[in-house]
């Protein structure tokens, strides 16, 4: 090997240069020497590495009982070694072109080697090896003709090929089941068909969208009814019932508090009930409760209604200026107020009174509230009245005698009657249908109670008279209670008596049917009157255009 290498080194050097043989050769020689030296170094290094690895294997096999080197490490080292060997061989192949082994002449040195180098005969050991293999292969068929030998050999080859294929298949299947990658790297493992993959993709999209963005979890507002029983961690957190959930709609409570002032009279009652259930906030108890304050009945000592929630005493924060109150009253809608008052009445006195009665009562309440202030003591009341009052009182007494409500004391009735008369005046004009109904009911009573009076005439005349209480020229005022309130305010401020005097003259008989319900109204009236309303009185006076009662007008214009 070394001789050949030296020859090789020398030959190209000799070939390539004709002149300057020494220096050139040295250069070329150096160049090749470097290659050679590098090759040698690398070959030696590789040899050492392999020997080291073998030693490691032996050590591991020796020291660790039953242990074996980790297959991964072994493979890694083997790959390193084989790569190194491959590189060396490649490099040598590159340089091989420059090396040609030809002895130029036969001399004593190479006479013995040359024939060996030139011969194509196998080396003896190689020859022996081949012979034995041939014998093994052709052991049973050497006596057959050559084509049959070939066929037999082909058959053997096919069998071996099929066995290899089977083995490959088994290995691949095992790889699949154990999740190992195939040798080729392509994952031929379990695949999903398109439908499954699409379904999984869709599910994944749903889940990710739901968790990250809340898609698919939003419940429309109308379906957001709170569960009947909140889970424990939310029970004490969220206020229960109304006013609790804030779903883009302002809490239920405030929805009832419309800017419509008078409307809140009844709704305020409802709302105050609602507020009473949950913790009332100061805000919600603001504006609407002003109306509430304006009409709650004064707690009347002997009234059966004292226990109801109508008895809201005005709180300091609910003070309302006259202007505001007037505006609120002006904005009232009839139905709401009617309804409210009806509710009030129902709460207070579930009597069999007709609708008119309810209406009247509410009005009477207001009136009574106003007048009650001054009517605390029956004696004092009478002193405040004008001269007409004496007549009215007489008439009242008549009615009292005629109609005693159960459970009502005489004084109450007296007071109630006085107020009711005024209220009755207002009531009928508001709703003529109800009025006629009341008339019908009260007429009979009138007949019984007030002998000697022209009831029919009175009843007919009452109609315009009752209208007096409202704006003249409007037989059916759409806001009876509103008018009531206005007038009551006017009454309440100063001259309750004057108003009452007027009305009593006209309406006493009318109100028998509704007397039973009017006690609370008186208290209401009083309350209204408390909120000093001079201006309203003036306005009320303006509304009274009925020329039939100039006297009253003058009285109102005090």
């Amino acid at each position: 090997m070394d001789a050949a290498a030296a020859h090789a080194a020398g030959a190209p050097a000799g070939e390539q240069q004709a002149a300057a043989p020494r220096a050139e050769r040295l250069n070329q020689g150096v160049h090749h020497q470097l290659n050679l030296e590098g090759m040698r170094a690398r070959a030696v290094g590789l040899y050492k590495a392999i020997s080291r690895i073998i030693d490691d294997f032996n050590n591991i096999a020796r020291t660790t009982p039953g242990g074996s080197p980790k297959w991964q490490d072994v493979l890694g080292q083997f790959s390193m070694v084989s790569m190194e060997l491959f590189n060396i061989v490649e490099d040598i192949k590159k340089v091989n072109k420059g090396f040609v082994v030809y002895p130029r002449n036969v001399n004593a040195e190479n006479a013995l080697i040359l024939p060996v180098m030139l011969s194509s005969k196998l080396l003896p050991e190689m020859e022996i090896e081949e012979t034995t293999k041939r014998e093994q292969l052709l052991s049973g068929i050497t006596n057959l003709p050559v084509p049959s030998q070939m066929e037999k050999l082909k058959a053997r080859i096919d069998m071996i090929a099929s066995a290899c294929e089977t083995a490959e298949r088994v290995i691949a299947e095992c790889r699949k089941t154990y999740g190992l990658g195939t040798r080729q790297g392509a994952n031929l493992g379990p695949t999903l068909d398109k439908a499954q993959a699409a379904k999984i993709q869709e599910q994944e999209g749903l889940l990710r969208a739901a968790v990250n963005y809340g898609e698919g979890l939003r419940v429309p507002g109308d379906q957001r009814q709170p569960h009947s029983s909140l889970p424990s961690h939310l029970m004490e957190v969220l206020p229960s019932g109304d006013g609790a959930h804030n779903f883009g709609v302002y809490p239920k409570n405030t929805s009832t508090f419309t800017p419509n002032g008078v409307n809140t009279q009844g709704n305020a009652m409802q709302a105050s009930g609602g507020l009473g259930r949950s913790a009332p906030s100061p805000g919600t108890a603001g504006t609407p409760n002003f109306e509430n304050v304006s009409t709650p009945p004064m707690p009347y000592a002997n009234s059966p209604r004292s226990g109801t929630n109508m008895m809201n005493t005005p709180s300091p924060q609910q003070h309302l200026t006259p202007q505001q109150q007037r505006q609120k009253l002006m904005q009232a809608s009839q139905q709401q107020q009617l309804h409210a008052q009806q509710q009030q009445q129902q709460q207070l006195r579930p009597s069999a009174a007709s609708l008119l009665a309810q209406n009247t009562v509410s009005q009477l309440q207001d009136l009574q509230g106003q007048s009650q202030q001054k009517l605390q003591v029956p004696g004092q009341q009478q002193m405040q009245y004008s001269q007409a009052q004496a007549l009215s009182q007489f008439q009242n007494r008549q009615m009292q005698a005629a109609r005693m409500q159960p459970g009502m004391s005489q004084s109450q009735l007296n007071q109630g009657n006085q107020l009711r008369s005024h209220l009755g005046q207002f009531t009928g004009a508001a709703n003529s249908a109800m009025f006629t109904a009341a008339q019908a009911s009260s007429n009979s009573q009138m007949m019984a109670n007030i002998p000697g009076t022209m009831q029919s005439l009175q009843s007919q005349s009452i109609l315009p008279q009752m209208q007096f209480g409202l704006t003249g020229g409007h037989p059916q005022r759409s806001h009876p209670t509103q008018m009531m309130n206005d007038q009551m305010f006017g009454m309440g401020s100063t001259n309750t008596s004057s108003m009452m005097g007027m009305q009593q003259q006209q309406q006493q008989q009318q109100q028998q049917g509704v007397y039973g319900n009017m006690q609370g109204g008186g208290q209401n009236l009083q309350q209204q009157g408390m909120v000093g309303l001079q201006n309203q009185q003036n306005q009320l006076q303006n509304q009274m255009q009925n020329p039939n009662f100039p006297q009253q007008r003058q009285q109102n214009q005090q």
Partner: protein
Amino acid sequence: MECVVQGIIETQHVEALEVLLQGLSGVPKERVRVHELCLKSGPNLGVVPSEVRLLCDLAQPTPSWTIRHVGGAMRGAGAEQISVLVRTIVESKASNNVLRYFYGIGYKLDHEVLKVGFAFRFQRGAQFTVTVTSANKMPKLHATDEAVAVTPGIQLVEITAPAAANNYNDVASSVTAFCEYLAPLLHLSKPGNSTGIVLTAGAAAASLMSSGGAKTL
């Protein structure tokens, strides 16, 4: 700030994932049952609505509330190269009346979800929190007892790790490295990207769940 990745796993393999996480983390698992309420601010609080999430931990005997605000994610070329999502997060414990407070200042309930599952919290280069939960929706408002899974067959796996502005790269690489360990069972990606399931997860799960081949100590 936090680094977060999400992935999905089929419900049948959740047990195997639990075994794997148990082995990787070394800490016992924690039960997770969180009622998450997502509130959106009303118009009175500005033109752009803001979102805040209230998490009520129902796994403890006394429920505890947490406020969580999820900010915007990091954008840009640098963010594209990182395989985790880096986003700002603000979290705070709160008292019981946090819900009432937010309602009071004008927030409205946008949606709610109940997450049930388990979680592992451990330190591995960063403070990891790995949660495996099934997202449930409630047919009636706040009816946590009647919650139904949004996707019964698939559960969500989320890995989060808190980070700061100066170390989010390291945290991101830690998270990515950890995700490699979970590769046999699930693919993880940024929350907006869909990953699909690992097809060979069944085999991996089988090997995780099997007790054969292990040397008894």
